[in-house]
């Protein structure tokens, strides 16, 4: 597909009629449209989107729903009508198409209103005369065949607005369509199967004369049943495969997060461990404190009386100590014994007897007659107290040392915890990702097992079909009509099998070849250590190698742009190649079609080196390049690209609502 011209009428700031003819010669394939910001570059790009796909992307504050030029709109009065039109002429597979979209505006209830836009499309084979209209209901389909809408963001590339067009949705169908596999897909659909009566195979089978042949009917019934089961299984497998793909992606994503957050996870675990240790140690410290206070209270009086005791000892050093008294015996004890009349040894104490006298004699050694014994007793007690005080002191000292040690430990751990918490302050909790990953792996295991079961069941169905097909063939091949039909069926089935096989092979082949091409182009523009990966949905990711693992790398705006350029140019380059060959001597091009690249501000925010690289690569790869560029960016691109420029235009902004496009003679 190559763009020949764009005609616009009253579309936004392009008041009146404007016609741009695009360069599409092999050596002069670049069209440059120069204009500064707000001059209408993006409007031109949106004109393509509106004409082809009936959508536009304008900033919210610029009244995006009103396509009619503001100056014309403001002059409209009751009864007046105005038209907005965008018309594109393009060539695709040797057919010239003219696509036009118009919208009528009219004045009603003090306001200008727009009718529903209308599209027309006609075509003519190159070199022939006369146009043939395409029926309205097929216009969108034909446009989508020429250039799938899902890929329009790539082909009509709004560099400043579209940050990453490649990771939005499943582009696989669009890419396969662009590369010519839709023809195969439709042919497979039309060939159909024996159970689908409105398809080629269904019609052949229903023409078979197998009336009255019960066994053949039963065999056919069993085949149909097995095929029905197969289609159910295929749907299940597809669903499961899609779920597996989702969980595989999720698994990679989580593993990537965990790999990146490995250090954070270790710190988070360490933090938890320290918190636990601090808590335990704080409990221990409280217990030691309690024991310290308890011990302190138990011996404090005696301990603090020690200086008094020492002074008493010194005072009593010279006192006579009589050790004849019975320890702890008092004068009152003697009085009680005498009063009782019997000694503790059992003798009767009769006044005047020897025993009586001896008992009385004891009073001489006891207070109040003598304090020697008391002093002796007192001294002995002080010695005992002194020993107890020493133990008391040692015990308290030991407890105090325990407290200090415990406090030191707590402080050290707290310091370490504070440092770790500073490091992980803004980091996510990695444990939740670990748990998610475990769940995802479990899901994957279950899904893979389920898929395996379906695959085994599918094999069983194949065996049933093969066995019953043999029975059926042998029974119905009786009449000559059936024989002829059998031959048609064999050819139809053989063609269908070849098409299905080719389609599957090409599906894989296309992605591999595209990835290869995109990487080659990417490396021409960007000289760094990154690789482009394209997944099953044709979403593009940049990978970088860390150790032995490839992980998705961060993408700056500039790098992201280079990635998207590489993807679209790779796609354009692949579209030019022959994708399917029927036999060595009979090649058939299903695609082999050039495509244009239309880009708004492709060098915006790119440095001089990238601008030069992009300028060199794009015209070489794409058959046609149309770029809307600011003067300051063109300054860098011009030396590399000017020899390719076949058509150059300048946007001349007259007012905020009126821009004129002029052909540049330079």
């Amino acid at each position, binding site marked *: 597909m190559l763009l020949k011209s764009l005609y616009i009428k009253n579309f936004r700031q392009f008041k009146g009629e404007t016609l741009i003819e695009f360069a599409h010669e092999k050596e002069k394939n670049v069209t440059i449209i120069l204009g500064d910001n707000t001059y209408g570059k993006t409007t031109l790009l949106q004109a393509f989107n509106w004409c082809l796909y009936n959508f536009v992307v304008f900033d919210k504050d610029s009244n995006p729903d009103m396509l009619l030029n503001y100056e014309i709109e403001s002059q409209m009065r009751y009864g007046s009508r105005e038209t907005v039109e965008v018309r594109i002429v393009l060539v*695709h*597979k040797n*057919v010239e198409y003219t696509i036009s979209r118009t919208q009528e505006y009219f004045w009603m209830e003090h306001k200008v209103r727009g009718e529903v836009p209308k599209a027309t499309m006609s*075509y003519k084979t190159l070199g022939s005369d006369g146009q*043939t209209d*395409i*029926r309205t209901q*097929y216009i969108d*389909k*034909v446009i989508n*065949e020429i250039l799938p809408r899902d890929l329009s963001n790539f082909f009509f590339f709004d560099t400043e607005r579209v940050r990453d067009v490649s990771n939005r949705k499943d582009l696989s169908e669009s890419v396969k369509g662009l590369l010519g596999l*839709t*023809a*195969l897909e*439709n*042919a497979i659909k*039309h*060939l*159909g199967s024996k159970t689908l009566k*409105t*398809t*080629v195979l269904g*019609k*052949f089978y229903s023409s078979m004369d197998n009336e009255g042949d019960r066994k053949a009917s039963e065999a056919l019934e069993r085949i149909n049943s097995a095929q029905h089961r197969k289609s159910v299984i295929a749907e299940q497998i597809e669903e499961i495969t899609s779920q597996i793909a989702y969980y595989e992606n999720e698994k990679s994503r989580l593993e990537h997060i965990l790999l990146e957050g490995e250090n954070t996870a270790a710190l988070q675990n360490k933090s938890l461990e320290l918190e636990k240790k601090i808590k335990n140690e704080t409990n221990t410290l409280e217990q030691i404190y309690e024991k310290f206070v308890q011990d302190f209270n138990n011996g404090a009086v005696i301990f603090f009386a020690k200086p008094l005791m020492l002074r008493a000892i010194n005072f009593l050093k010279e006192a006579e100590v009589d050790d004849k008294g019975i320890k702890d015996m008092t004068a009152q004890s003697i009085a009680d014994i005498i009063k009782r009349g019997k000694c503790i040894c059992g003798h009767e104490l009769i006044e005047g007897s020897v025993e009586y006298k001896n008992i009385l004699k004891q009073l001489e050694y006891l207070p109040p007659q003598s304090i020697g014994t008391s002093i002796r007793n007192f001294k002995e007690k002080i010695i005992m107290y002194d020993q107890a005080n020493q133990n008391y002191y040692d015990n308290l000292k030991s407890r105090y040392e325990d407290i200090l040690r415990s406090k030191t430990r707590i402080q050290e751990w707290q310091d370490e915890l504070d440092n770790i918490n500073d490091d992980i302050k803004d980091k996510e909790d990695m444990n939740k990702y670990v748990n998610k990953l475990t769940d995802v792996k479990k899901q994957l295991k279950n899904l893979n097992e389920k898929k395996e079961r379906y695959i085994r069941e599918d094999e069983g169905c194949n065996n049933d079909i093969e066995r019953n097909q043999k029975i059926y063939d042998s029974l119905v091949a009786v009449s000559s009509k059936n024989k*002829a039909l059998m*031959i*048609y069926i*064999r*050819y*139809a089935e*053989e*063609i269908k099998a*070849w*098409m299905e096989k080719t389609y599957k092979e090409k599906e894989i082949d296309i992605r591999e070849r595209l990835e290869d091409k995109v990487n080659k182009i990417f490396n021409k523009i960007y000289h760094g250590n990154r690789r482009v990966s394209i997944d099953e949905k044709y979403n593009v990711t940049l990978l970088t190698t860390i150790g032995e693992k490839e992980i998705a790398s961060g993408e700056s705006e500039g790098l992201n742009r280079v990635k998207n350029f590489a993807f679209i140019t790779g796609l354009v380059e692949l579209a030019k190649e022959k994708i*399917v060959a*029927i*036999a060595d001597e*009979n090649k*058939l091009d*299903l695609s082999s079609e050039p495509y244009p690249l239309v880009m708004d501000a492709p060098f915006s925010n790119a440095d001089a080196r990238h601008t030069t690289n992009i300028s060199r690569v794009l015209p070489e790869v794409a058959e046609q390049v149309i770029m809307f560029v600011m003067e300051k960016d063109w300054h860098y691109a011009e030396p590399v690209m000017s020899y390719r420029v076949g058509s150059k235009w300048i946007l001349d902004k007259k007012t905020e609502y009126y821009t004129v496009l002029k052909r540049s003679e330079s």
Partner: protein
Amino acid sequence: MTDIEKKGLDEKRLSAMKINILELEIENLRTREKTNEAMVDAIRKMIMEEVKKNY
């Protein structure tokens, strides 16, 4: 003898059918002139005529 011949089919006819069908599909993708039903009939006739041709 090739696998195709073992099945009682002719390589040349088979290639011609593949090309004709795909060309028809490509053409209809360009213009959408034929409905699905018309395409099925056209393909069916293509196969039958190709089998009947004398090479």
